[in-house]
């Protein structure tokens, strides 16, 4: 194992905090989004964007870059935060989340620099990632790697297993899947709604190497990425099963399916931010604001208001 310095560990945890804080800001401001799956993957994204991925923020199309695909695209705020923190997009772009011409509620690779795959419909990302990995190998770009972050609930989708079979068969060892195993899908616990266990056995039976880690421990995560990159080039793709807590960081949201998709009121959001900043020992910073009406899409407005002003 390659050990991380204390400083690096602090940096990564700090980035995870920033990702959560900015995501909360985005979701509160737009009054739309998925807190649970966004928070659970904060450390995973921090490690990828601050330690693992070969990327060039000033040149998103750098031809030597690694490729990261967020298959569980509903957790895009975390990715947007990471992209903003690394400089792919402007910090203020986060306030355009879910606005005409702004950042997509899920992901749009044509619109956002650094986003390598459009998404929003679950189950698709691993096939696409396998395609990129296959293509890179064909181009003999052996140093470029592909990472795909999957939801655990997403693993119900059969196309994931088609892709797993494909990657296993074609021995795509430049491909790493990470499962954000936060134990919940949208409406409840996975083991109640559609049990996944024995999960590691599934991946193994489809021809993959498997590593299980604590998905909130940046050291364990980085070690796992290091391992699949340098120590286990055994001709197999690798799956990192990252055990996480859905909604991690805010007690009310943890393992609580009600916070899978739901935007907090401004009051609630500020309480969440306070909790986050205590946990991470940070100054809370500015109060969060909301800009949208949100709600049920009342046609009243569009029919009765005569002046339509696009916000």
């Amino acid at each position, binding site marked *: 194992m390659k050990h991380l310095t204390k400083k690096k560990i602090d940096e990564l945890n700090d980035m995870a905090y920033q990702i959560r804080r900015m995501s909360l800001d985005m979701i509160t401001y737009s009054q739309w989004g998925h807190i649970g799956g966004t928070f659970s993957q904060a450390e995973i994204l921090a490690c990828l964007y601050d330690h693992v991925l070969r990327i060039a923020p000033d040149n998103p199309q750098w031809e030597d870059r690694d490729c990261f695909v967020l298959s569980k695209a509903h957790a895009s705020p975390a990715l947007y935060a990471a992209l903003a923190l690394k400089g792919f997009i402007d910090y203020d772009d986060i306030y355009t989340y879910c606005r005409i011409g702004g950042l*997509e*509620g899920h992901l749009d690779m044509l619109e956002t620099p650094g986003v390598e795959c*459009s998404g929003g419909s679950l189950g698709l990302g691993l096939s696409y990632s396998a395609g990129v990995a296959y293509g890179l190998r064909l181009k003999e770009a052996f140093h470029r790697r592909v990472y795909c972050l999957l939801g655990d609930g997403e693993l119900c989708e059969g196309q994931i297993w088609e892709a797993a079979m494909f990657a296993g068969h074609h021995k795509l060892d430049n491909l790493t899947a990470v499962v954000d195993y936060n134990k919940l*899908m949208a409406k409840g616990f996975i083991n109640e*709604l559609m049990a996944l266990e024995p999960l590691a056995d599934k991946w193994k039976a489809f021809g993959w190497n498997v590593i299980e880690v604590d998905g909130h421990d940046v050291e364990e995560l980085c070690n796992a990425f290091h391992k699949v990159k340098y120590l286990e080039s055994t001709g197999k793709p690798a799956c990192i099963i990252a055990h996480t807590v859905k909604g991690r960081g805010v007690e009310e949201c943890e393992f609580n399916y009600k916070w899978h998709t739901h935007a907090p009121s401004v009051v609630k959001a500020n309480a969440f931010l306070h909790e986050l900043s205590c946990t991470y020992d940070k100054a809370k910073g500015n109060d969060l604001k909301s800009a949208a009406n*949100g709600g049920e*899409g*009342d046609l009243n407005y*569009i029919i009765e208001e005569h002046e339509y002003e696009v916000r």
Partner: protein
Amino acid sequence: MKFDNESMREVFGKTLVELGEKHDALIVMDADLNTSTRTVLFKKRFPDRFVQCGIAEGNMFGVAGGLSYAGFVPFPVTFAAFASRKALDVIFMNICCPKLNVKIPGCYAGVTAGEGGPSHNSAEDIAIMRSLPHMRVIDPGDNNELRSAMNEMMAYDGPVYFRVPKVIPPLLMEEMQAFRWAKGIVIREGTDVSLIGTGIMTSICVKAAEFLEAEGIHAEVIHMPSIKPIDEDLIVKTAKKTGRIVTVENGSVYGGFGSAVAEVLVEKYPVKLDAVGIKDSTFGSAPIRDLLIHHKLTPKDVAERAKNILHAKNVQ
């Protein structure tokens, strides 16, 4: 127009429970969206007749076929985008071809997934679903009609796709009118131009007609919830009357509702038609209101289009 205070998905969920009380064979299936689609109400009332499928739509529709064969009337429930795009071959082979009695709601239909963006909005569902053999297609206009249509489809033995938008809709009609297959409704009589809406867009047409009236243009407004089969007679009748048609849908006009009306017109009584909807693009990610404005689907836009078609010189 009167306004309702209940969202269509809520009415959908409640009506499922009402129907569940009457029909022992009714089964509701979920692909991990029950609190969003409001099937959670059915789940609580009839836990034994609620089938959890996880996030696997293909399998859900296949299981629905099997349940139907075993004598049940399944409602496999997911968003319209996924119902129309994720499992089409299953719906074709295991539901449409054998004409099985499966009712497929398309939740958050059309533009009403709003912030969900292209992946969650459904612009193509009408075109796709009406191309399938034996599939009937409904886009209800308000809560009463949604409830009525759901009752009506239980009396029909065969596959049905129906849109369930995520909006609080206005009440389209003062008095409740029953949904009937292949029947449109004249909401407002007019002589200059016909606005034919489907689903929640009819309410947009009603308002557009008010704008037009203010300018001295008498628009006829027709509501067409039954897209397949469609009300050919009423289409021909209004075409004869006004000679100018504007269709309005929140979806793609390629193969969609406007196209369905066009098919009838060219066969029976060709007149000019302008199809309002989107063309070769997607509903992006923003609040529904902003999307309607952005894609020019507001009453003012419709009124504008009606005036254009009215003032265009008769080409024939």
